[in-house]
């Protein structure tokens, strides 16, 4: 069986500089006295994702979910360990990256598309489809500063799904938008599943995890806490999350 994504003993440590981060003064001070506080976001994670699989990652805030997606999406380099990704990765980590408020919808489609790695000439043929999917036919020549938040998001999503990735990373984006748009997003994800794409998504939306994911991983404090079918992991996670059990993690949250 071919693996799309293999994560081998990946650790990621962020350096936190307290006080005046990013100035020469603080650099001099810390050089003489303090060391930055180190935050271990991932403490040795092993995950293998088969081709065509839809993997959900759940866990509390600060458990390392987003860091893991960031590492697969090549936004962060791991501190140690190996990440092997076969095929083209596209990340729906934030919709509309690089959108500029002064530019029109069309201009932003080109800009956003090239940020995601699509060639301009490939974008040309897709413009109509993108505009239609975003339901923005009437507004597409207006600067997007005149758009509502929902419109900007729809536009961002419509461009992002054009990338035609082998591996799609989704981070929480489906939690926003009205219901009709959300259902549109889910049907797009199902379309990707049918096409045999690998999908890794991070979500707090547990019913969605049960519905979409073929396998689920529960991350806790930078480690894989549990791995298995969506139902079994979500069940265990729900029981764990009842009030009262949170106390032991209260200090870790900040």
């Amino acid at each position, binding site marked *: 069986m071919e693996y799309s994504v293999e994560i081998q003993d990946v650790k990621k440590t*962020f*350096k936190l500089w307290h006080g005046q981060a*990013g*100035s*020469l*003064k603080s*650099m001099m001070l810390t050089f003489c006295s303090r060391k930055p506080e180190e935050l271990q976001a991932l403490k040795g994670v092993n995950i293998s994702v088969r081709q065509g699989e839809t993997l959900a990652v759940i866990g509390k805030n600060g458990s390392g979910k987003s860091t893991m997606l*960031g590492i697969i*999406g*090549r*936004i*962060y*380099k791991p501190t140690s360990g190996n990440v092997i990704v076969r095929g083209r*990765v596209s*990340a729906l*980590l*934030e919709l509309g*990256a*690089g959108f*500029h408020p*002064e*530019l029109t919808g069309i*201009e932003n489609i*080109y*800009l956003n598309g*090239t*940020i*995601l*790695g*699509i*060639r*301009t000439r490939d974008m040309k043929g897709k413009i109509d489809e993108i505009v239609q999917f975003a339901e923005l036919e009437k507004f597409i020549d207006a600067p997007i500063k005149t758009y509502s938040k929902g419109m900007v998001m729809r536009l961002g999503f419509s461009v992002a799904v054009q990338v035609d990735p082998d591996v799609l990373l989704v981070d929480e984006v489906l939690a926003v938008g009205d219901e009709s748009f959300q259902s549109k997003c889910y049907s797009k994800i199902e379309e990707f599943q049918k096409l045999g794409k690998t999908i890794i998504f991070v979500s707090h939306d547990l019913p969605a995890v049960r519905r979409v994911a073929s396998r689920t991983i529960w991350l806790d404090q930078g480690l894989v806490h549990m791995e298995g079918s969506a139902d079994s992991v979500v069940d265990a996670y729900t029981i764990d999350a009842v009030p009262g059990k949170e106390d032991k993690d209260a200090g870790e949250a900040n």
Partner: protein
Amino acid sequence: MLKELSELYKYRDLLTQLVVRDLKVRYKNSVLGFLWSLINPLVQVATITLVVKYIMRVEIPNYSAYLLVAYLPWMFFQMSLMDASQAVLKHHDMLKKVYFPREVLPLSMVIANLIHFLLAVAVFFVYLLVIGTPIVATWLLLPVLILIEFLLITGLAFFISCLNVFYEDIKYIVSVLLNILFYLTPVIYLSEMIYTKLPAATRNIFFSLYQLVPLNTIVIAFRKLLLPPYSVPPHVKTAFELKDLPFNYEFLAITGVISLVIAILGYAYFNARKWSFAEQI
């Protein structure tokens, strides 16, 4: 570095789009739009000419042309390095969310400034033809000059844009240094004035060192290769003797090499640190 360059080549459309965005956005809400990039140097040059010629009474025939030919490359240098400090930082939303070769950010900014510079140079040539400056063969070297300056600026922009992510003092340091550099570079005066001020015994050594500073030679080259040699007609009385020195092509070649080295070092430094930007911001 070759691997980085081939990845950058794959993202060349992004570079184009970012340049287009920069150019479109800069003057989007102003009535005069692009004209501002011409008005700005012209007003500067008019003001300096006024001060030097009529208040300080330094008699240099055709001073405003000599000033403008040096001021345009200076402005390209200054504007780019000022923009460089924010080139990466202001795109923090993109850096945290999307993979792309990070170097497109400073590069697109320098290219956008280059385009403004080229348009200003085009207008400058129209002006030269209108005032009847003789057309000379050395005008053909203009693309070489521009390339050398582009390499120098790109290399420095890589250093500045990268360092400013980690230490935001950099942008203040850059702006102070640019203020000083404006007076150290032969923009408002001729390089010959420096030459005559140097003690005769060590004149040649110091003037050689002076020309090893890339920006000095670039500005000198713009002046000497585009405009006729500076000369004072016999009937005009000037406060001091000034002989036009011939242009030294060796220093242009050396400057080209230095600029290329700065560009490569800047790119290497940027590459070494570019994947920690997302963690820092």
